[in-house]
């Protein structure tokens, strides 16, 4: 099977039908989305396609890039782009295979069931301890070559820690990916091509001076085309300077070789289609490419840690509007510095005329991993409204304003969480109170986006102070309502400790109306007024 010839990409057509197409057909305007049997496959497919286009496109200027966005290249053009790299996309055969180790052979070591390629599959230890409680072993035992290729790529992109020497991916285990999505509204969905192309930069932007001198050999881009020793010394590390810049899309942390000899006929356990070459097992070995150093994946946001930038990973609290700012515009507060994905950075800081008029959303997804264990798959799309039409100056003032809104919300949710805790428990109660946060973020989401849209669509027509006051009012009302109706107030007060409940309520009210929250929202703090409220209750209710 050759990945450039095979129709192995599952897509959704405009009329709602599912189809499998070849890579060269991807510019077909009739295709609106990926349609793999699993959400993580869809995410991996998007990254695969963006990587492939970025690696192969000859577009070298903003003008060319813009033209290709509006008029997608035809299949023949795409085939021409891909052809020089054909050697890298062989999936079976005796030599180099896509995303598989160059040296490893099926006879080298004990075979592993193909199901283990899936991120959430129980590991060796879980099976041995019989602890595969929620996701059982043996769900997936046979995969068609199409699904196997997808599963393999998905694993290499997300690779969690897998035991000694089984490396994590270039962005660590289960990275967060943020992609721009062309948004034409529900009536006229944009073609998938536009979405993919929005995340590709023209070559000058992408290479930014580093054309990979000395690393023109194809295995510096596609590491499976040679022994890993050709890139990395034994026991060494792989840093960006050792490879071609496009390698970032083709990182191969795991050494895996699928066993294509022991195949059988039947139906694939994932897509349900029949195949006469179902793959059942693979071999793997540790000590593959060890990605270290200043990697910067173009599709992921990074945060500033003590020793440089680290990629963001989804956390157990999910994805939501509170991340909007750091993913879309980046964040530069004292507490936290986040750099948006470089593709988004370059897109939004480029010429307005080259991006204006494009409806945008942001598609964010990734695994929340606890080392080897997949805790959750998170996926969300966030609206960007007419952000593409905003000048850099407008973006900067938006960053400041939205930053203040989010700071206010963070503060309000911390007050609420503390109040619920104080009302229910004496002293320091430990435990998971994230449900309080989750409901708060959920209840304030609609209002946030409403303010945001108004702010982006008519930056001159919105008054900063009035907007912040409205947001403050909404935060206070939501926090009090959640306290009084959803959490503490949902039970009869006389069955609890009313004194504690009353104290928590009073403190919550005082904090929400206090000067700190107003300051966080960059609102004027009335002199002294904030202090009195918390100490003495007024005489008349």
């Amino acid at each position, binding site marked *: 099977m050759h990945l450039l010839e095979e129709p192995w990409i599952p897509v959704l057509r405009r009329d709602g039908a599912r189809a499998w197409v070849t890579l060269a057909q991807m510019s077909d305007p009739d295709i609106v989305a990926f349609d793999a049997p699993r959400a993580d496959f869809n995410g991996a497919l998007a990254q695969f396609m963006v990587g492939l286009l970025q690696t192969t496109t000859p577009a070298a200027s903003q003008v060319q890039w813009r033209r290709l966005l509006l008029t997608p290249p035809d299949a023949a053009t795409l085939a021409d782009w891909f052809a020089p790299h054909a050697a890298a996309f062989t999936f079976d055969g005796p030599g180099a295979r896509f995303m598989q180790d160059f040296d490893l052979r099926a006879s080298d070591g004990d075979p592993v069931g193909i199901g283990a390629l899936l991120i959430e599959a129980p590991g060796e230890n879980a099976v041995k301890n019989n602890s595969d409680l929620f996701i059982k072993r043996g769900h997936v035992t046979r995969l068609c070559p199409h699904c196997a290729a997808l599963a393999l790529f998905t694993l290499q992109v997300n690779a969690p820690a897998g035991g000694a020497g089984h490396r994590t991916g270039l962005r660590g285990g289960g990275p967060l990916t943020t992609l721009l999505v062309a948004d034409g509204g529900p009536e006229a969905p944009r073609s998938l091509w536009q979405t993919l192309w929005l995340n590709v930069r023209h070559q000058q932007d992408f290479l930014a001076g580093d054309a990979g001198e000395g690393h023109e050999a194809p295995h510096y881009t596609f590491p499976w085309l040679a022994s890993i020793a050709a890139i990395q010394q034994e026991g060494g590390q792989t840093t960006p300077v050792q490879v071609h810049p496009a390698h970032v899309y083709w990182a191969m942390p795991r050494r895996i070789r699928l066993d294509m000899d022991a195949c059988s006929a039947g139906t694939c356990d994932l897509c349900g289609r029949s195949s006469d070459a179902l793959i059942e097992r693979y071999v793997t070995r540790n000590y593959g490419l060890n990605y270290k150093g200043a990697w910067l994946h173009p599709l992921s946001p990074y945060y500033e840690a003590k020793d440089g930038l680290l990629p963001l990973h989804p956390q157990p609290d999910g994805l939501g509007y509170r991340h909007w700012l750091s993913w879309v515009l980046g964040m530069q507060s004292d507490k936290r510095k986040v750099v948006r994905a470089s593709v988004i950075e370059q897109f939004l800081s480029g010429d307005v005329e080259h991006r204006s008029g494009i409806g945008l959303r942001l598609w964010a997804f990734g695994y929340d991993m606890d080392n080897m264990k997949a805790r959750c798959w998170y996926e969300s799309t966030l609206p960007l409204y007419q952000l593409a039409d905003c000048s850099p100056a407008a973006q900067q003032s938006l960053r400041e304003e939205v930053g203040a809104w989010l700071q206010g919300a963070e503060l309000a949710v911390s007050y609420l969480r503390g109040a619920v805790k104080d009302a229910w428990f004496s002293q320091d109660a430990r435990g998971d109170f994230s449900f309080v946060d989750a409901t708060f973020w959920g209840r304030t989401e609609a209002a946030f986006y409403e303010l945001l849209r108004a702010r982006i669509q008519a930056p001159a027509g919105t008054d900063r102070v009035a907007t912040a006051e409205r947001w403050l009012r909404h935060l206070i009302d939501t926090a009090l309502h959640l306290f009084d109706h959803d959490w503490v107030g949902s039970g009869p007060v006389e069955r609890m400790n009313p004194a*504690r409940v*009353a104290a928590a309520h009073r403190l919550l009210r005082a904090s929400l109306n206090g000067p700190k929250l107003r300051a966080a929202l960059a609102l004027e703090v009335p002199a002294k007024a904030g202090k009195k409220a918390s100490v003495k209750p007024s005489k*008349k*209710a």
Partner: protein
Amino acid sequence: MVLIASSPAPQGLPPAAISALVRWWKTLVIENPSGQARADRAVLRRAHDLTAVACLPAYQRVYRSMAGTEGTGDWPPFQQERIAAIVALLAHVKADSGLTLPRAMSLRAEGSDRNPVSELRFRRLLDAGDVETLFAGLRRALPLVEHRVDPESLAKDVFFWGDGVKKRWAYDYAWSMT
């Protein structure tokens, strides 16, 4: 069991009914009240449970004056019981301090370090599951606040006694731990 054939629908406490009630209460507390008012006050104060209140002509007169106001009609039995409690409790109120019950019960006298109604007693009041229990509790609590409270808020809180009122009381009472 016999169902009452035409039980009226539940209704709230319209402002006109409240004014009628407060007007009546004022006849009890003015200087030199009439003989009738004195007599009514005395029998109502003596009534120690709601059945006893309901049987009193004094109560019936107040009830009629409330039910006869504009936009008001007869209340169903469970609400009549609450009005009986309100009427009997108001007979114990001697002055309007402008304070709600929870405020009055936790407003310390000058120099005192204890709430007039202790936290324990207040919690028992909150725990009152029916109006009969609430009536008994409040009847004993009123002397502790020197029979001074805002009559209108007393009427509303007893009439709407339930989770919402309880929560508000819990928030309004000045707990010593705060």
